[in-house]
């Protein structure tokens, strides 16, 4: 007699593995971004900005090329160069009403009162996500342009119906570019949701960050050598793509299961943080 195979245990364990992988990826991405926000050499960068400022100002005042000022500086003594940089710092403070270290920190989003969404958005970790999204969006719009005006049969079998925007057919089981883009944006939104749940930023900042990332993935800059007609086409195609992809992506991220995953990650990390002092004490006593 054949007993029914209980696959529920195998399915559950597989699902848990997928959840763990997703959690690990999301957590890693946010941790990387945080590290990049906190890192950087503020003093060195402040000196660089001051040196550049002083070089430029001197060149303008003496009506000479900036490169020539730099070449003159090669012959200066170490103390003269140090004075030059200090003069640059004073000038920055006077011109922009801010100390160079604070200017660099503000520009690098390294202080608490700087716009957090901007700070996160300009880390290399987030830029990687934006670049990957942009690349997929570019591929999708380019493919769509290639398929434009193709004749295809309509839903009721009507031959000769013309569609301007046609989904590109791929081999069975191979995700389309749109699917890949949707999955990517699900990951991006989940990463930001995790950062909000982990207390890295509030809900409004999280929403603002999502909008910034989405804008950079789908928006075409005004500058470009394409014709006005083509630019208009591209803008329409990009916005249609954005609406479709983000609607599908949000239906996934707003699904309770994904929200539960992010919650559990957040709870696990908080539990570890609570135990940390006791663990450190125990380690010290050994």
């Amino acid at each position, binding site marked *: 007699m054949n007993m029914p195979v209980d696959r529920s245990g195998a399915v559950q364990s597989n699902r848990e593995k997928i959840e763990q992988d997703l959690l690990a990826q999301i957590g890693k991405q946010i941790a990387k971004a945080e590290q990049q926000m906190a890192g*950087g050499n503020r003093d060195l960068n402040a000196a660089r*900005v001051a040196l550049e*400022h002083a070089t*430029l100002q001197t060149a303008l005042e*003496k009506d000479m090329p900036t490169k020539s000022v*730099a070449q003159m500086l090669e012959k200066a003594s170490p103390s003269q*160069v140090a004075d030059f940089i200090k003069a640059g710092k004073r*000038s920055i403070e006077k011109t922009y009403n801010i100390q160079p270290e604070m200017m660099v920190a503000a520009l690098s989003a390294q202080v608490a009162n700087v716009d957090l969404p901007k700070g996160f958005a300009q880390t290399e970790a987030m830029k990687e996500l934006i670049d*990957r999204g942009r690349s997929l969006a570019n591929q999708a719009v380019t493919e769509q342009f290639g398929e434009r005006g193709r004749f295809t049969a309509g839903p009721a079998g009507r031959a000769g119906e013309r569609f301007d925007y046609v989904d590109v057919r791929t081999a069975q089981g191979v995700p389309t570019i749109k699917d890949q883009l949707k999955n990517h944006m699900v990951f991006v939104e989940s990463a930001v949701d995790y950062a909000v749940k982990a207390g890295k930023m509030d809900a409004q900042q999280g929403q603002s960050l999502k909008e910034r990332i989405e804008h950079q993935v789908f928006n075409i800059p005004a500058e470009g050598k394409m014709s006005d007609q083509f630019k208009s086409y591209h803008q329409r195609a990009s916005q249609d793509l954005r609406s479709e992809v983000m609607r599908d992506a949000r239906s996934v991220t707003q699904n309770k299961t994904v929200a539960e995953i992010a919650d559990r990650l957040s709870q696990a990390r908080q539990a570890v943080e609570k135990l940390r002092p006791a663990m450190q004490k125990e380690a010290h006593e050994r």
Partner: protein
Amino acid sequence: MATADMSLKSLVPGTCVIITDIMTSVRKLCEVTESGNTYIDLSDDPCPFPIYNVMQPVAVGNPVSWAAEATERGAGKEFVAIEARMIDASVDRMTRLRALYWCSETGTYDYDKALVAGRAATDEVAKSRQYMDSFIRRAAA
């Protein structure tokens, strides 16, 4: 003595700008940061430098506009393939932007040539940074 115009230009974050390097006078492609009035020119050492109006900054778009231009020229697939391949190969970000911009400017969509051009442009920027840092080290000595 002439009055120095030290005003800053504001551009769209996440787009690229061509600007004159102050230390070497080389024209370089950089990326506008989230503040809008500073740029990054090296991925592995991202120091935000102000976009001074007097250094002739010119906004030149980004891979989205370059992909659109390539598509209108009939080379869209080649461009997006180069972009995807460079991302998969983890090409340094600023080098990748410079390589893709080279494709856009020359109308040549060749991965290897683009990469060589991108790396050469990044090397020039890296040399300028080393030159700048040599002054700072000397001042600290």
